[in-house]
């Protein structure tokens, strides 16, 4: 029966024992990839360089709530039992801070500064973050002026995705259609079982790696577990967003009283935009050297919650927190639809978890869409 399931048919996974994961790492290294994967650092799951599979966390899961993130140590052997930490793939392609070019005044010249990159395999990528990456790809690479820095970093990645077998309380990827099962945009897919991993190739780049692994045939029971895990993770999600058409109405609710309500709680700290895997705003600024002869153009992440974001000389277009939160939410959920053909939210819930006061994007959206409370 399971062999007929469309997901099983398209994936055709093999089985890799947990002990054989180290072999997977060795193959990646031999093919010239540095390996990035999840580690526990500063009390959170973060991506860092790995040399052996033993460095992956074991039995670590997480409790995520509005304004709350705690790791929990279980007694199982699972290495991908966590949901996601504060950052997804965004910092790997869209650098938090980088030099775009340097300049010299004598003789006058501008010199591009290409990023230093090496082929990188990222293990433990989630479906929501792949959806976010696709959005960032469109933002930075489509159109007449693709971003060379982003492109070079992006092309250096080999993405190893893992199905989410459980959802955090702040996850709502099922309602945006972006998870919890992997659905394209990766090179190699994995589903974690108690006894090991189902593993399959999704791209030609991934095939080169998979061909060097001695995979065992997957049993029907294992395939069934793979399918049920993501179904259960999906059903367990407690939050959701209204559908895209309804979200377009946010632009018709610009004077809703609820914007004031959010503004009373929002600190305008920008945590939500820093952890959001689709937020793309950046600031470009000159830094002069002390000798006065050279300067560099620095690009670093910006936030529409910052006081300088909408600055026009002595005037700010969005001087109030209400205006900034409204800008962020309406753009993310309505504006992106005409800019990118889909909403700018992939349901990871990071903005909810990492908001210091626990503002919940899904709840605020529903409140603003409720009629009958227009501030007129």
């Amino acid at each position, binding site marked *: 029966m399971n062999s007929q399931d469309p997901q099983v048919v398209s994936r055709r996974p093999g089985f890799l024992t947990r002990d054989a994961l180290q072999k997977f790492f060795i193959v990646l290294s031999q093919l010239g990839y540095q390996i990035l994967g999840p580690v526990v650092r500063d009390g959170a799951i973060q991506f860092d360089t790995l040399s052996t599979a033993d460095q992956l966390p074991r039995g670590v899961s997480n409790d995520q709530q509005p304004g709350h993130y705690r790791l929990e140590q279980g007694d199982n052997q699972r290495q991908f039992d966590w949901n996601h930490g504060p950052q997804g793939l965004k910092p790997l392609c869209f650098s938090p801070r980088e030099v775009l070019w340097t300049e010299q*005044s004598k003789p006058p010249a501008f010199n*591009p500064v290409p990023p230093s990159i090496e082929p990188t395999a990222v293990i433990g990528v989630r479906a929501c973050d792949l959806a976010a990456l696709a959005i960032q790809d469109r933002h930075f690479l489509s159109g007449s002026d693709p971003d*060379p820095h982003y492109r070079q970093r992006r092309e250096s990645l080999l993405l190893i995705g893992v199905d989410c077998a459980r959802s955090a309380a702040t996850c709502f990827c099922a309602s945006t259609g972006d998870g919890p099962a992997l659905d394209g945009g990766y090179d190699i897919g994995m589903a974690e079982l108690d006894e090991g991993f189902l593993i399959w190739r999704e791209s030609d780049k991934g095939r080169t790696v998979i061909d060097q692994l001695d995979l065992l045939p997957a049993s029907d029971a294992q395939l069934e577990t793979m399918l049920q895990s993501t179904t259960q993770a999906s059903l367990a999600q407690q939050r959701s967003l209204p559908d895209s058409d309804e979200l377009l109405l946010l632009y018709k609710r610009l004077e809703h009283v609820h914007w004031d309500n959010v503004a009373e709680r929002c600190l305008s700290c920008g945590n939500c935009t820093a952890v959001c895997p689709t937020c793309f705003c950046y*600031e470009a600024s000159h830094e002069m050297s002390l000798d*006065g002869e050279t300067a560099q153009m620095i690009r670093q992440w910006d936030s529409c919650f910052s006081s300088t974001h909408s600055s*026009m000389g002595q005037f700010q277009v969005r001087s109030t927190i209400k*205006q900034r939160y409204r800008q962020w939410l309406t753009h993310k959920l309505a504006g992106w639809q*005409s800019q990118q053909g889909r909403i700018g939210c992939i349901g990871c819930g990071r903005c909810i978890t990492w908001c210091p006061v626990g503002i919940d994007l899904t709840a605020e959206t529903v409140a603003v869409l409720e009629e009958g409370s227009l501030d007129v």
Partner: protein
Amino acid sequence: MFDPHVPHVAVIDQRVQESPTIFTLRLQYEDTRVQDAFEFDPGQFNMVTLFGIGEIAISIVNDPLDSHFFDHTIRVVGRVSEGMSKLQPGDHVGIRGPFGRGWPMEQIKGRDVLLITGGLGCAPLVSVIRYLMRRRDDYGRISILQGVKHADDLIWKEQYSVWSAERDVRVLLAADVATQSWQGQQGMVTELIAQLPLRPQRTVALLCGPELMMLAAVANLREKGVQDGDIWFSMERNMQCGIGQCGHCQIGPKTVCQDGPVFCYDELADFFGAKGF
């Protein structure tokens, strides 16, 4: 690989002091291949870098047929523009561009053109005026309404008198604060709209200046029967990348640097004048 972030070096060929705080730089790319490839539409802008200080968005004010140079008229408002005001012929700047969508000059051929500018928003429209004068037969009646805060702020006085002498061209000036020698009206530029013998069905209005002025102008134009789809304006926002990437210049779902800076009123009606957008 072409990198849209990296400027090309341009040299200042001429510098004209237009008023105590306004100056024009005539520029040429150092690399002649870059200069030869440089084409633009009236209303588009360049990102201009002052070495060691920073980069600002400035509209291009000369005619697109001028292929050997390009002009930027700049008012001293901040750190970068003040530094630029001290540059002299032979000095260098960095240029990226041109960026954005300019005025719909092809689309409005044959129509009466009404140009309304206020404050110091004249630069983006001066390129249009020059464009129209050079192609006078392609367009109908031309009306130029120019408002300034203080009578002394009016630059290009001689040009206005030359333009007003052309066939079917009307120039009306207004200053909030008039001087004894001021020959225009005292008051707001938008008050001049009522005085015009407009042919609303044939008229296309091009607006540039402070948003409050443009909002008032839109109201007056609609009263006169000009259609929303025939009202165009140039917007200003915080612009850093010029290629729709950095996110600062968004107004609702539009980016000013890429979808604009010139918009049709229809396109931005929901957000034009809405606080916070």
